[in-house]
């Protein structure tokens, strides 16, 4: 039964807290499944104020996430729920302390629930501890991990790299040289993306050789410089996987000017990546649909607050976007269904 499953999940969470928390190894469920188990979103009593803290609005990904929160706030209000969501972010991805300040401020201001996307795995832990003291529910929205949050909402990060690896290996017919541009080895997501890619190749595509793997610190220009050098050093290079789209777009510039036919795959699904795919420059990106992710996260938070039994990990949709589906509607790709309200 669904209830039984959730309770075992909770008990594993107990032990997980003292061991390493890794959502990829958890028994997560998807939102559709959650909805079918728990039904419509319960009616919200009274006024509810939610606080959402993103990593950094400097990055398009997080601005889109914010948009999702706002969209869902609208939907809630349209359905007669008095819910407001305040969305803020830290000052850049190096501002761990600042992000913590924001969370503490929200706790001081007695927000009713928190949706947090931490910069690093640890920086919001003290805030979450404070929230627990005030019994404020905390939902961890990817990609930093909060071991002591109530629920994790996000895509399966390792699958992200796997999707890319699978696509590349199919395109290449299972053989050829590939390279990886890593972001900063700071975020869980960056590491998992790389690991997922490597693991898939090792397990399923022995003909593909990862010839190079270097950091570009999420920087477009550094990624381009890396690719410039690689393209010369490995004349047979067939594909480059990048930990995010910004770097992938830098790599695309290098590939374009080399005149070679090298596949470039990014991660995030930012608008510019879609454009580039349409133009036939970038080959693919793995979109984790922040616009919907934040809506799901909010839905999960409300369910949690109304006392429903929510499992520890909720997977959000992600999909590989290439020329075949770039014109498709996102809702169609992820088979999005609007939530129902009580």
């Amino acid at each position, binding site marked *: 039964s669904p209830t039984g499953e959730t309770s075992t999940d909770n008990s594993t969470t107990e032990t997980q807290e003292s061991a390493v928390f890794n959502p990829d190894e958890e028994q997560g469920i998807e939102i559709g499944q959650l909805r079918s188990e728990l039904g419509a979103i319960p009616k919200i009593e009274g006024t509810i104020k939610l606080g959402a803290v993103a990593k950094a*609005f400097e990055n398009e990904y997080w601005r889109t996430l914010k948009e999702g929160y706002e969209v869902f706030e609208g939907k809630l209000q349209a359905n007669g729920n008095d819910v407001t969501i305040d969305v803020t972010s830290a000052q850049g991805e*190096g501002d761990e302390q600042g992000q913590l300040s924001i969370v503490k401020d929200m706790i001081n201001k007695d927000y009713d629930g928190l949706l947090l996307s931490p910069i*690093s795995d640890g920086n919001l*832990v003290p805030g979450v501890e404070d929230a627990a003291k005030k019994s404020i529910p905390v939902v961890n929205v990817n990609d930093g991990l909060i071991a002591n949050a109530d629920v994790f909402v996000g895509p399966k990060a390792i699958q992200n790299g796997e999707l890319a690896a699978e696509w590349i290996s199919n395109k290449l017919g299972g053989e050829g040289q590939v390279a990886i541009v890593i972001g900063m080895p700071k975020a869980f997501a960056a590491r998992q993306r790389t690991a997922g890619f490597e693991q898939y190749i090792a397990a399923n595509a022995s003909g593909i050789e990862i010839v190079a793997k270097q950091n570009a610190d999420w920087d477009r220009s550094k990624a381009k410089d890396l690719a410039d050098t690689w393209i010369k050093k490995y004349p047979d290079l067939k594909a480059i996987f990048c930990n995010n789209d910004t770097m992938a777009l830098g790599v695309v510039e290098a590939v374009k000017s080399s005149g070679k036919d090298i596949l470039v795959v990014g991660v995030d699904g930012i608008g510019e990546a879609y454009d580039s795919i349409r133009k036939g420059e970038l080959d693919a990106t793995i979109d984790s649909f922040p616009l919907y992710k934040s809506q799901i996260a909010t839905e999960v938070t409300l369910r949690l607050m109304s006392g429903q039994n929510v499992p520890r990990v909720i997977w959000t949709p992600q999909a590989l976007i290439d020329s075949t589906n770039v014109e498709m509607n996102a809702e169609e790709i992820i088979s999005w269904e609007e939530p129902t309200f009580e």
Partner: protein
Amino acid sequence: MKNIWKKFSRELGIIIALLILIAVFGIIEPLYLTPANLLDIIDQSVINGLLAIGITLVIISGGIDLTVGSSMAIVIVVMGNFLVRGLHPVVAIILGIAIGLLLGGINGFLIAKMKLQPFIATLGMMSVYRGIAYLVTGGWPVLNIPSYFRNMMDGDIGGVIPSSIVIFLIATAIGFVLLKYVKFGTYLYSIGSNEEATLLSGVNVDFNKIMAYALCGVSTALAGMVLLAKLGTGEPAAGQGYELNAIAAAAVGGTSLSGGKGTMLGTFFGAILLQALKVGLVVLGVDTFWQYIATGVIIIVAVYLDIVQEKFKTWKLIKQTA
């Protein structure tokens, strides 16, 4: 009373600035003035404050240290590794301090003995230390720092005052005494103000310089420990860009980047002021992008006020003697 006034006249500017800042934020949003929030501000300035304490020593001696962020990362990952393997926390703390001393000492050696310019020597070492921090863990964070250590460095003492604040206060006090009442401090001012004259007075300039960097390493190590305890995770990428914040705190607190001038209390309040500003902007819900602008403007205004205050003092002195 008037004596105290005079004694701390150097720090007066920054204290007044801090009070004004708090008052302004408090008027706009009373929540800002709650004890919990004010305590939080201090608590959150501990890391930057500890780094700034060490950097103040170095800057007074006429140097600069850009490695603090990277050194901190090394301390964090090494201590984290040992703690997770069950090393006694006290031993781990001693180990951490020793690492800080060593890393700082290397900087000091390059600068004092090999005569490299402080900016460029520590710029290079910043990169070297970061690489080492990554190598220690292979880039991965050290997870699940034991809670006894976390409680030790970041628990509550007597259920009220966070122990990290106590560490911060003790470090400030030690720094204060070092600068004001111990030879070493006199030598730092003296070296920063006129290195040649100090050398000719028979002071071992090289040794004192190395000590300044080594002690900066120690306070960096303390900052690292507190961060490790606060976050419960030791990341090799921790502390990136922290060096500039720490320098800003020292400068806002009245430390002159050309050396020879500065006080520990100034730095202490400087670190708190920067955090009070940040928290204030958050409490007011100021847009992130505007926060960048506000932070920069406040740094410049604070330092400018310090210049104006100095000018005013000189002017008053002239009036008196005229």
